[in-house]
């Protein structure tokens, strides 16, 4: 595969991807394997799929997983209740079972004429067995509907991106079939780029102060819930709206409530600020 292959991803205008991440995406696309993305909340796992879809100019199909989601839901749903209703009133077409079979997200992705990006979001939310139930379907890119005797086969093999918050261990058999990438929390350099994507006109001095303060807060051992990318974005919003001068940002860390969501964490920050070791005195 050459680097200028059509299906080659190199980040998009609104998403800053690290080099490793782009590499992983391209490997997964070339090998036709699902790409499993793990990482801290707020490192942009879900955004990645949107960005890949945009960069490759493909349609994105999102399957959001909840704790009650079953593998079956992604394939198809057989609406027995509707059929029963129709049966009671003798509506036409009750004999036609296919009328009551509705494709799920996976089915939708398979039956699309064009190649699509299928995002299976937060796969670890579901039951432990969930990923195993999808092994065959993701491997063969087809499934069988016994009610209609029909086999749904992918017309164009979709690019599958799966995200996980590492809440549950995923089964080995499933992992073996995936390309794995772990998104590390962005370092200061990358974070500055990310912020600039959201605030193109941000003052360099303000940006430097904000990231310094932000990474200081993240480095505190006492903090239980570390702030993530979305929090720094909100924080900059709050800081610019209030017009606080740049030199006060590190000194006072104003609006700490925007980046820290727990009372204990805010107290911990106050204690850290009072210490003689506080770096921004």
């Amino acid at each position: 595969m050459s680097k200028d292959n059509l299906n080659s991803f190199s980040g998009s205008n609104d998403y800053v991807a690290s080099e490793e991440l782009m590499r992983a995406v391209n490997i997964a696309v070339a090998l036709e394997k699902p790409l499993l993305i793990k990482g801290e909340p707020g490192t942009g796992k879900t955004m990645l799929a949107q960005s890949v879809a945009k960069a490759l100019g493909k349609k994105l199909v999102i399957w959001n997983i909840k704790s009650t989601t079953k593998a079956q839901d992604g394939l198809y749903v057989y609406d027995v209740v509707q059929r029963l209703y129709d049966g009671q009133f003798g509506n036409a077409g009750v004999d036609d079972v296919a009328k009551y079979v509705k494709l799920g997200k996976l089915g939708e992705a398979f039956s699309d004429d064009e190649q699509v990006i299928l995002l299976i979001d937060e796969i670890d939310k579901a039951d432990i067995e969930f990923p195993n139930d999808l092994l065959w379907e993701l491997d063969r890119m087809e499934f069988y509907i016994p009610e209609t005797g029909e086999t749904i086969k992918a017309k164009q093999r979709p690019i599958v991106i799966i995200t996980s918050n590492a809440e549950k261990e995923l089964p080995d058999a499933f992992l073996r079939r995936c390309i794995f990438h772990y998104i590390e929390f962005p370092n200061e350099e990358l974070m500055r780029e990310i912020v600039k994507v959201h605030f193109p006109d941000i003052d360099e001095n303000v940006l430097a102060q904000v990231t310094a303060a932000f990474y200081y807060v993240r480095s505190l051992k006492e903090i239980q819930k570390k702030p993530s990318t979305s929090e720094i974005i909100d924080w900059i919003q709050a800081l610019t709206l209030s017009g606080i001068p740049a030199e006060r940002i590190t000194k006072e860390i104003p609006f700490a409530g925007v980046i820290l969501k727990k009372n204990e964490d805010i107290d911990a920050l106050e204690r850290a600020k009072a210490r003689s070791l506080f770096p921004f005195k």
Partner: protein
Amino acid sequence: MFDSFLYLLRSKGLKVSMTEWMTLNEALDKGMTHASFSEFYYLCRSVLVKSESEFDKFDGAFLEFFKDINFLEDIPEELMNWLNKPQETPGNYDEEIARQNLKLDYERIEQMLRERIAEQDSEHNGGKYWVGTGGMSVFGNSGKGPNGIRVGGESQHKRAFRVAGERHFKDFSEDKVLDTRQMQIALRTLRQYSTKTDAPKTELNIDETIEETGNNAGRLSLVYDRPRKNTVKVVVMMDSGGSMDYYRKLCSQLFTALRKSNHFKDLKFYYFHNSIYERLYTDGECIPGRWVDTDTVLNTLSSDYKLIIVGDAAMAPYELFGGGYYNYGKTNGIDWFFKVKHHFTHSVWLNPGEMQYVYGNYWRETLGALQKVFDMYPLTVNGLESALKKLMVNR
């Protein structure tokens, strides 16, 4: 040709399967590494390793296997040698050069590195052009330039954006001590659904009923299922006070995790101080009076409760084997432990403390004795997982 790499990885405890190995070979056949060694590294890692907690193991094995290959293309050995002995030349930080260097992009720097290697013939430290140590140029190590390629040495200023062999995923290694979330996830292994057992079919299956009724031309036809509920019951006996104070935080996390995992059919907590005797305390304070007879507990809890004992098993030997004034004439602690263990079909011991048995150490005598009675596991991610698996196996 490099199949031995697979076996090295497997011997390091990475569960690399044939599927993954074939995938890697397929990728290599497709020429996906673009003949670059770092591309090759990332390709291997994303195909063969499936958890960030194993990145460190992988990095170690990778370095071991490919140690004779220089990470940064063709750097002469003598260059590597002097780079690995940095000499600080303080006070040479130059803002102007830093700013200029920041403008350089990655590819440009790599190209410059290749040019310099071709030109350079001697050691340079503290400069701003050649590959050297402690300087302002974009190559070398221990430098103060804001970006660039590190060539050898230790990462002192953490700035080089291509650091090979740094093994910075060490923190994710699995043997670190647990936090509550990890514990809760681990505790989910303690599940056994009654659908899998032979419970009576008592729950109406609505979907199937409607389906059957539909097939039956609208005449009602009911379908029943076994209820899907967790049948696992757990009893926890926790050592409290004394030497356990060191592990109070860890134990309270385990306590919270157990309380939060509300999927058990029943969950009981009892406490003891150092050793179990004829009474178990009902709260962690171990105040005399707030207790129940151990025999009563054993009589009321059926043997299918899973027993988890938490304790460091460190106590004065007489507390376990008798002979002290404290428990004179009573059943020995060790006998109580035997009795409790034999009442339950499944039991494990979780030890938050040191588990190494040292012969002749006064406080470790009891540890050895109790390890013979119970399957003892350390209270870490791996330890808890193995312990819980042990609780679920059929005997």
